[in-house]
């Protein structure tokens, strides 16, 4: 198990101008899917960003294996309307693969992003992060804006073994956390 170590977080307190989240401690190994649970406003998304330096760390340490490749699916939507980019071009940006995409999206890959439904677009963005080359995948509320078919496909994909990767999920969706996470850490409890 020691060889499979990816990340160790010890007493992490993070925020922006001032600390807003933490302290948080956990260790993550390859093959694990860790859920960060907690009430709204506990700072789960902030702590997720702190793992790669996206926000200021006030206290504690984040110890990573050398050359750790992180893929972060952030919450929120940039307005993509009007940009002439296809789904296939979007996937190629992150180095993601189209293999394994659900058929309802695979057949629309050559359409412009602004010709896809909100659920299809969200799933595609998620897929671009999920299948990008990475050791650690950070998912922030991945089921937001997904339709039922998308959520079901995501759960199925996560449930299959990803022995080489570690995954951390922040979600208010207890069903998702319970179904796919191998371990849950409470934040702000």
């Amino acid at each position, binding site marked *: 198990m020691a060889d499979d170590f990816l990340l160790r977080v010890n007493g992490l307190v993070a925020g922006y101008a001032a600390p807003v989240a933490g302290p948080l401690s956990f260790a993550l190994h390859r093959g694990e899917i860790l859920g960060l649970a907690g009430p709204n406003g506990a700072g789960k998304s902030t702590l997720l*960003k702190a793992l*790669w*330096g*996206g926000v200021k760390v006030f206290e504690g340490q984040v110890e990573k294996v050398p*050359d*750790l*490749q*992180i*893929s*972060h699916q*952030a919450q929120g939507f*940039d307005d*993509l309307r*009007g*940009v*002439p*980019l*296809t789904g296939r*071009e*979007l996937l190629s*940006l*992150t180095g993601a693969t189209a293999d394994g995409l659900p058929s309802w999206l695979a057949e629309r890959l*050559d359409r*412009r992003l602004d010709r896809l439904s909100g659920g299809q677009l969200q799933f595609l*963005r998620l897929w*671009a*992060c999920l299948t990008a080359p990475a050791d650690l995948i*950070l998912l922030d509320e991945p089921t937001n804006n997904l339709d039922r078919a998308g959520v079901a496909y995501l759960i199925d994909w996560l449930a299959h073994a990803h022995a080489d990767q570690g995954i951390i999920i922040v979600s208010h969706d207890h069903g998702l956390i319970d179904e796919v996470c191998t371990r849950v850490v409470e934040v702000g409890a």
Partner: protein
Amino acid sequence: MSFDLLFDPLFRVPFVTGLLLAGLLPLLGMYLRLRNEWLAALAFAQMASAGALLAMVFDWPMVAGGVLAALLAALLKGLAARAGANAYALMMLLAWAGGVLLVANHPLAEQAGHALFDGQLYFTGEGHLVAAALVCAVVLPLLAWLSRPLLLGRFFPAFYRARGRDERPRLMLFDLLAGLAVALATVSLGVMAAFALVFVPPLIAYRSGSSWRAGLVWSALIGMGGYSCAFVASLGFDQPFGPVCALLMVMLFVISSVKYSRM
């Protein structure tokens, strides 16, 4: 109205110089629009114009003055990234104020100022052509290399930082390339035409392109096609090139909008 001049060898060099820039500027405009920074092109053009005027006053080459001023603007823009559109507006105000003061206080600057704004394409020489060819040779391959980071910056802003890599040097390189090309276009085609070529073809291509690659091809073709029509029209009707080019570009946008709204 006379179109005989079109076949005069004297106008071949200006035409080819402008054609090269008319293919390049829309490509840069595609990425400036992607980053919501199309206003930066106008700031670069105004700064280049003021720099060229300043160079003329000190009896230095105007092209060098324009390029240096635009590169300085690109550098400032990169350093003041958080200021966004405010930085462009401040640069434009600085360039306008400086340019108008130079025109008011220097006897030769008034004529040069008009030429820079209207476009002095017909007076460009082989030096401009060589510079345009060199800029295309440098900018095009670098732009192809920068394409992925620029697109990632819009669609997945955390992509590089999450992998421990700093994307800022690449973004700054893009600013410098855009500044360089817009400056050369400003001293060759004029402020108005340079901005029209950066702004309008991407505006149309964003609507009509079926993919990013198709959008790039469309924007370059629209730029070169619109420029060629403007060149012919301004020579044939003996009108300044800049306003004719800008008007034609706006007309192209209106026509494409009508077509698009019917689809």
